[in-house]
């Protein structure tokens, strides 16, 4: 039985919530998952849903920082880039966005949706042989999200969702796993999936089996987000701060 199948047996619940563990009145949602897990689609839908519900929303995504974004894009094009260096650049990118975007928004009581957080860079580095314990310590500075929605799609399903030739970076071509780009993609995404699967427990991911129809997955994402928000608004921290924007 695949881990994905095992996860669906359990009801969708938020792991023993650490409400506002980041200490701010806002709410931080993270979406993680391998390529073609539907992340971008569900990030967009979640944002729309929250805005219709009258929430102020801030979105942030990988490599969008001013100081590190271009450096990361250069490293991704370079087949000989040192994976340790790339991991450090991703950490610099995330640190800047946490300081400039995430924390100020959480302080203002907004909902922050992060399209990937520390786990994608960690998985990409680990898939290239970087030490997992070091990566864990490196990203130890990140504020804990209120929920991590893990769109659980494995490498086979991810590959089945595309009929094109994946780009060299998505295929992990630098690892030399296979000369065939689609096969290399499957093997590389499988490594990433194995990392996510391992992070899921300790990091408190909420698994959303995302092989189902987009509508169904979308409903689960929204329901889950709503339950987290409901939990937070009744929490003492939420009441005392009283600074949530309409």
């Amino acid at each position, binding site marked *: 039985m695949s881990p994905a199948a095992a996860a669906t047996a359990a009801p969708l619940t938020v792991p023993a919530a650490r409400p506002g563990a980041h200490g701010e009145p806002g709410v931080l949602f993270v979406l993680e998952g391998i390529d073609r897990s539907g992340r971008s689609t569900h990030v967009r839908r979640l944002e729309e849903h929250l805005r219709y519900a009258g929430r102020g929303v801030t979105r942030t995504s990988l490599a969008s920082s001013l100081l590190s974004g271009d450096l990361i894009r250069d490293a991704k094009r370079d087949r000989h880039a*040192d994976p340790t*260096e790339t991991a*450090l650049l991703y*950490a*610099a990118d995330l640190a800047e966005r946490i*300081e400039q975007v995430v924390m100020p928004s959480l302080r203002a009581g907004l909902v922050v949706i992060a399209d990937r957080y520390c786990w994608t860079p960690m998985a990409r580095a680990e898939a290239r042989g970087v030490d997992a314990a070091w990566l864990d310590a*490196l990203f130890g*500075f990140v504020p804990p999200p209120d929920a991590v929605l893990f769109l659980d799609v494995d490498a086979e399903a991810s590959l089945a969702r595309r009929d094109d030739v994946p780009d060299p970076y998505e295929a992990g071509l630098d690892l030399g796993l296979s000369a065939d780009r689609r096969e290399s993609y499957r093997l590389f995404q499988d490594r990433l999936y194995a990392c996510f699967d391992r992070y899921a427990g300790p990091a408190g991911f909420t698994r959303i089996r995302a092989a189902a129809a987009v509508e169904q997955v979308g409903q689960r994402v929204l329901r889950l987000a709503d339950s987290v928000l409901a939990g937070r608004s009744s929490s003492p921290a939420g009441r005392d701060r009283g600074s949530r924007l309409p």
Partner: protein
Amino acid sequence: MTHAYRPRGLLIAAEGLDGSGKSAGLDALGRWLERKGRRVNLVTWEPSRLVARASGAPRGRQILTPRVAALLAAAEVADRIARDVRRPLARGDVVLADRYAWTAVAREVARGLDPAWAAPLYRFTPPPDLVIFHRQDPAGALARALATRPTPVGAEAVASAYSAFLERLMAAYDALLGDPSAGPWPVRTLVLDPRATPEARVAAIRDGVRPLLDAPNGLAASA
């Protein structure tokens, strides 16, 4: 296949404040090792170009924080280490590092980052076979810094801010010296007394390095 004598790569780092005699000590050590037939590479710790570029731009100045600066600097170090340290060590060369990871960690801690995060950050650097720590009191380092890098304006203000920084730097080095597990990796250390004569220092460094040269794994098989 033959077994040719190929020495094991050796990494020796000199750490300490400005004007503590690090460069002179490494110079003498390098010449001594070359006379013993070793190939010696000297690497110096460069200030981060990425951080300089960020702090040079108006927008970058606004958003640069100690953590982002530390990570950008570390990324640059990772790139340089691969080229300037790992490669020569793999060839069996000696690498002498004029400042190394301890300096990086101590500076980040002096700038306010948590040592429990800043020290493991540099665990990606190859651990030195020996860290030569040059003790120096912060007042001496300050005098040296002001003499070699005169500041055009507000020399006194600069001096007082810099001396506070040096005190924090020294405290961070002391924490690394006091508890080997507090650093990026456990490491053998040699601490040099600031009052020792230059000749005594050279002799102490040689005594510290000699046993490393005779280490049992000095022989490596080569095809």
